[in-house]
């Protein structure tokens, strides 16, 4: 559905994207990993119009689009790395979502506030937080508001830039659960940028590894650990294995102390 062809981006005398091509099918969740500075975020930002690629084309449903302009602004939504920074401190949670509904003219005008509130409610946000300004919310709650705003636009593609890295463990877990939930209900196409492979196991169908502005690996999640060839990909696969080994030591007591649950 989303087709990226030959994207190139150079600035400050450095290449951030070198001829990057990538296709994402409808309903697919793609994880994009790489070391910092590999160009992951640049790719995500080029897809949303926050930056403009030097060359290359992006097509959505076979139509060439200019990211961040016209219909593409609504169709491709972007979730920022730091939710506390991407929410206006001047708006309440529900007005933040309402702004998007109004901006894209979604739903009948009279219903929009209700719509915004119900959307926030489906994201496990308590009622009393709807009318609070976002700086009074925790990081995890902000992430939910941001997600609600992005989904209020009813996008075809959701691009998430390091959605977990600024959250603590509990919030990370609940965000993952939420994203799983969203995908289950709406089958939204997602591109998730991450520096860590571990959380992507719960979300991504496919892993794309970016190194030095190039795609070096593109494998389904299920066989990534076994089939990855590139040294960087192998290093990532390696982290999965150590993690699992260490997690085993933590979960040793799980049987004895059941039913306490997450955050």
């Amino acid at each position: 559905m989303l087709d990226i062809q030959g994207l190139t981006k150079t600035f400050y005398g450095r290449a951030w994207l070198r001829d990057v091509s990538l296709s994402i099918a409808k309903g697919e969740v793609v994880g994009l990993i790489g070391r910092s500075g590999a160009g992951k975020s640049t790719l995500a930002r080029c897809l949303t119009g926050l930056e403009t690629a030097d060359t290359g084309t992006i097509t959505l449903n076979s139509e060439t689009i200019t990211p961040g302009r016209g219909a593409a602004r609504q169709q491709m939504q972007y979730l920022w790395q730091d939710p506390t920074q991407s929410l206006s401190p001047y708006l309440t949670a529900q007005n933040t979502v309402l702004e998007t509904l109004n901006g894209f003219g979604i739903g009948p005008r009279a219903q929009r506030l209700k719509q915004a509130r119900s959307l926030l409610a489906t994201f496990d946000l308590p009622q009393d937080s709807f009318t609070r300004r976002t700086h009074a919310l925790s990081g995890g709650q902000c992430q939910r508001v941001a997600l609600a705003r992005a989904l209020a636009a009813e996008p075809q593609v959701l691009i998430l830039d390091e959605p977990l890295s600024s959250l603590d463990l509990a919030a990370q877990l609940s965000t993952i659960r939420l994203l799983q939930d969203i995908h289950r209900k709406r089958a939204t196409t997602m591109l998730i940028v991450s520096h860590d492979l571990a959380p992507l196991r719960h979300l991504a169908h496919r892993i794309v590894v970016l190194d030095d502005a190039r795609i070096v690996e593109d494998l389904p999640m299920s066989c990534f650990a076994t089939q990855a060839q590139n040294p960087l990909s192998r290093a990532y696969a390696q982290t999965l294995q150590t993690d699992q080994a260490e997690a085993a030591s933590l979960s040793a007591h799980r049987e004895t102390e059941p039913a306490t649950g997450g955050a």
Partner: protein
Amino acid sequence: MVALLQVQNLSVGLPFSAPLLDAISFDIAESERVGLVGASGCGKSLTAGTLCGLLRTPLRVLAGSIRLDGTSLTDASPATWRAARGRSVFQIFQSPGTALTPVRRVGTQLAEAAQIAGRDTKAAVSQALDAVALQPDVTGLFPYQLSGGMKQRVLIAMALILRPRLLIADEPTTGLDVLTEHDILTALNTAADETGASVLFISHDLRAVRRIATRTLVMHAGRLVEDADIADLAISKAPAARALATAATALQNPC
């Protein structure tokens, strides 16, 4: 044996309001490595700052005592703190990107640490850089020319040069990718091995803590709720500790 660091009933906050750190007590023994975990905003960084005397006004120690290496640092004068910092206690911070002074070369900043520690500059610097797997030529570079991981390793090198009795690492890997994180934690362990320093490792991520420490302190909402082996967190009486363990397990296991 008397512990290296003794924290007794430490409360920190604004005068005349509810404390942000509430009666925290813990000890760290000589050469012991301890993890300090907790959700965002629970007071981990504040604890670290208090132990380094880096509270910003109007925050201040309301009650309790800190003894480090036999010296009481409770209500210590600026001069006493200055004498303790660097040699007795040193801290590596979150956000390595901004931790080094941008206008001075890395070498100069390391040499400055060597002077404070009273060591031979050249030898100490090259030895420390070697230990954290950095090329010697980074001394001629300015911080902006280094990647985030390299900067954090420079900070660890600084700790190696200073040889503090207690090294506090406050979320040293936040914002770094997972592979770099691995290198940093290795370097941190090396540093602790070489200097014999005690380490207080602060993180929200149990996975990272596990690489450094086994004994883990868990904080929740300004209180210390658990002091246990990392493997025992899942069976802790404190819900916050259990929640952390569960989240960590859930994240690390394939679903």
